């Protein structure tokens, strides 16, 4: 059983990283990849204008959270995080179905996937 998590913010050298195997991959590496994925998702969402790509960027943000959950789950040696991820994947699937339906609906009206071509609502 783990006692305290105060050390979680300490530098990697002071924390034993060996729970992820002895290949030198620690929780921090997972969190770094997760944060990178999340940031890429945000940047992509803000800069791209293709509706499918924008949706994929939000999916990437979901998966970033999923990766963080799994890494923490392994780190804490309990399964709550992994269970959480299964539910997250379910929600992500529901959102994917919804997103594609909505995009198809718009595409039928006007044959474009560019979000900027839709500007009926501007304040």
């Amino acid at each position: 059983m783990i006692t305290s998590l105060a050390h979680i913010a300490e530098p990697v050298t002071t924390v034993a990283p060996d729970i992820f195997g002895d290949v030198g991959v620690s929780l921090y590496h997972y969190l770094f990849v997760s944060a990178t994925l999340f940031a890429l998702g945000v940047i992509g969402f803000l800069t791209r204008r293709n509706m499918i790509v924008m949706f994929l960027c939000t999916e990437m943000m979901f998966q970033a959270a999923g990766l963080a959950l799994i890494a923490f789950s392994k780190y804490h040696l309990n399964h709550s995080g992994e269970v959480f991820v299964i539910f997250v994947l379910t929600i992500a699937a529901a959102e994917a179905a919804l997103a594609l339906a909505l995009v198809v609906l718009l595409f039928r009206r006007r044959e474009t996937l560019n979000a900027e071509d839709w500007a009926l609502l501007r304040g």
Partner: protein
Amino acid sequence: MIQTILTPMFAETDASTEMLEKLGFLTPEIALFVTTCLVMIIGLSSSRSIRDTIPIVSVIGLGVAGFLAYTNQSTIAGAALGGIMPFLKTLIAIVGIPLVLLMSGTVDRDYENAVARGLPFDSIRSNRGEFYAFLLFSLTGLMLCASADDLIWLFLALELTSLPTYVMVSISSGKAKSQEAGIKYFFLGAVGAAIFLYGFAMIYGATGTTVLFAGDGEYSITTAFAADLADGALSPIATLGVILAIIGVCFKIAAVPMHFYTPDVYEGAATPVSAFLAFVPKTAGFVAILLLLSAVGWGFGAEGTSLPEPIRITLWIIAALTMTFGNVLALLQQNIKRVLAYSSVAHSGYMLVGVIAGPGDGGSIASNGLGAVLFYILCYGFMNVGAFAVLACLERSSGDEIETFEDIRGLCETNRVLGWVMVLCSASLLGLPPLLGFWGKLYLFTSGISAGEYALVAILGLNSAIAAFYYLKLIAGPLLDEPGESAKGLRETPYVGRVIAATVSAVSVVALVPFVNVLANAANDAATVTPAQAQTLDGSEAKIESPRSDDDA
């Protein structure tokens, strides 16, 4: 009742009794879910007259759910805000009924009209049943938010509230505007969900559990946070998690970093759906924020009545910006739906003041910010539904929705009932005494002052003054002006449900005033916080330093 049915099905173990307890406090949700399934099945009927019973079935289901919520006073074990559940669920069911009534004639209107004129009814082409089912699913999700005692549960409930609303916006009218609004709403909603999910992941990472509250002093996020705070501060990762979760939920309550979709989506959706969006996701967001923050607790600071500083500052900035942006931008709008959308943004800012103020000493509603928030949700539900219902009841002779202030000029003269509903609801939204909205705002003010948030209360007062400019236009236009050319060309939509919803809301805004004391006390009791016992993961009481043991790998 549920207990007697289910007891023989489970062996008498701890897990099964725990599960039965949980099912016991979920009776309103179960009733609502059964109604939802029933509505979906009725919606498949090939007979038009059977399908027409859908709104009635929905209202009955909500009534039953409300009754069950009112009689079922069970609370979540170990929750800091245990009493919030019956109050909120009853409130949701009560405000849900006018919302359902308001929806009449929203979906497939052109098709229904064509059928009424003699076109043979084609059961495949109408999707009214699904629309009502989505609405009830969303309300079920909202009730589930109020019963959440686990991060996974809270996440799923928030998504169950939101996902149906994206579809509702898209199919609410046959126009391209609604579909554009739907996709805009969906994309920003997905980003919001991803952000609070990331926040939840960080909270899990910091504490090692997804359980928000647990009975019998078992380890949970609440006890872990309490242990952290006993050491002086939350760990950086926990703080980051809570802040990210709040920012993500800001999408649901339409608060500042995630508010910019609000006017577009409210304008694009059919007016009854806009009313729905202004109440249901907003309430879900506030419930989520209250539950998360009750796990953190308001026991920080010298007097022990404040949130941890980084979280308090974040909320402070969000609240101040939300109020100001909402009101200033509302001033610049010509379209009434956009004005009401920005006013809904501003109202979120007001309610955040109560969240920051915290529960106080729990003695009375005057110092209990959380009670004030719950009470304000009730007030806001009625006055907001009323204001939107007036817009939904009127249309141009071309069949378009009414849009500008010009359209409602002299409404009291041309349509007495709707005119007065607009006047009363706008006055209440403005906070004019003695209407319901005034009392809601008063408690927010007093709780802010008693928590020592003088600067924030000053901003709140200033914003109420700015808001007067546009609410007075909504009051004086119908009441004092002569009806203009465009106002004379308006006609009332042929849906009785919408007029009932408008009237019920306006009457509540006035008739509930004598009961303010009762309601406010109920809100205060619901929002009384029991402080958490500090505890660390190994089950011991909080210690200053508890280094990681070696045998855990």
